[in-house]
């Protein structure tokens, strides 16, 4: 398969075009390092100004969407250590959190000294959603570029559950641990506007409601939330405007007692569903759903191209894929 000679995007990636040197349109549009550095400074300064001016009248300065993976663990530690934040860490348990990640979450929350909340949506509802996502593309094609359909559904629920809690508890910032490849710096400091959020929520809520019925609704914002527009928080992605160095991240979080799960795929450090989600996406669309993220990390110089290619080409763990299918009650032999 043809792959960009500079990054790792394959010829199967939506909308890709190569020039005579085999360089893709995304690499050709990539801005110089000086531009990225200046943008990072701009957004870091914006966040730090907002942080200094915050008026946290509730018990918490920020809510951390905490998956237990390496990036959100590092971000959680940064918030508590560098910014002295009173954090409420929230983990949404999709039924496939690695047991090692669960232990990591407990250990790290204690080591860092933050309050932590597990939210566990009904598994019968999630099961319907994930099984449907494995069968068909239910979201707009644009979403396919950044993640698998299963991941997009799961993350949408995580985002809206976190937003619900932030509005209810009057928490002024919701923080995510997206890598610079997952979230561009321009999305690193974002004020949630209620009308914009209402529209964005509809694009994911509607298809999920068609699949799972009204039982999905508790995991989305209700009118009672929209009735408190003054409580809508900022979304912050600190790793998009701070230095991102995987070796440094691992070194720091291991000091906190974090251990790398052995049962997840190479692109996840918390979720057992990922192997299956990636397998489905590769079968349906012909490329690894992590290609976009890793390609951007390669362009930014934070990931070696050969390492990225190796990560993307590593086959999924067949046994794990089988276990996930069994738990979801899916019988699709062609995906085995």
């Amino acid at each position, binding site marked *: 398969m043809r792959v960009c000679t500079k990054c790792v995007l394959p010829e199967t990636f939506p909308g890709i075009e190569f020039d005579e040197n085999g360089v893709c349109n995304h690499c050709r549009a990539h801005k110089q390092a000086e531009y990225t550095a200046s943008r990072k400074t701009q957004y870091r300064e914006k966040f730090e100004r907002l942080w200094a001016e915050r008026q946290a009248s509730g018990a918490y300065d920020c809510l951390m969407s905490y998956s237990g993976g390496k990036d959100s663990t590092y971000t959680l530690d940064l918030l508590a250590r560098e910014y002295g934040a009173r954090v409420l860490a929230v983990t949404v348990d999709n039924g496939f959190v690695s047991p090692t990640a669960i232990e990591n979450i407990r250990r790290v929350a204690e080591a860092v000294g933050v309050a932590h909340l597990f939210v566990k949506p009904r598994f019968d509802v999630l099961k319907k959603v994930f099984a449907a996502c494995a069968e068909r593309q239910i979201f707009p*094609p644009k979403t396919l570029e950044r993640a698998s359909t299963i991941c997009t559904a799961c993350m949408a629920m995580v985002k809206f559950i976190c937003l619900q809690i932030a509005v209810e508890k009057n928490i002024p910032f919701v923080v995510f641990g997206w890598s610079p490849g997952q979230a*561009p710096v321009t999305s690193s400091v974002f004020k949630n506007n209620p009308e*914009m959020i209402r529209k964005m929520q509809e*694009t994911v809520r509607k298809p999920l409601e068609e699949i799972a019925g009204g039982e999905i609704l508790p995991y989305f914002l209700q009118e009672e939330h929209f009735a408190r527009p003054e409580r809508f928080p900022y979304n912050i992605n600190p790793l998009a405007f701070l230095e991102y160095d995987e070796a440094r991240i691992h070194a720091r979080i291991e000091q906190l007692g974090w251990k790398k799960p052995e049962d997840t795929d190479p692109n996840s450090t918390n979720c057992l569903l990922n192997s299956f989600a990636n397998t489905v996406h590769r079968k349906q669309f012909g490329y690894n759903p992590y290609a976009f993220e890793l390609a951007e990390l390669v362009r930014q110089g934070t990931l070696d191209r050969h390492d990225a290619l190796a990560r993307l080409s590593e086959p999924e763990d067949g046994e794990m894929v089988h276990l996930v299918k069994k738990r979801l009650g899916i019988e699709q032999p062609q995906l085995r």
Partner: protein
Amino acid sequence: MENFVFGLDGAELNDSDSFLDKGIIDSTGVLEVVAFLEETYGFSVADEEVVPENFDSVDNLVVYVEKKKAEMPGQPARLMGA
């Protein structure tokens, strides 16, 4: 705009179509449009201006950009009906 809005299969887009309803742009895409406008036109987009009324269709964007350009220092005031 092409990079943010189009790119997959050349789907039809009318100037009044909602980017979000049509699913051709997501939250990240909206913020990339914000950054693009700031760089291209040299004005700042305030947080409270990132609303569907300003950013959710080509028509809305055109009106918003015209308004912001008119507010920039050194820009001649537009005459009504001119």
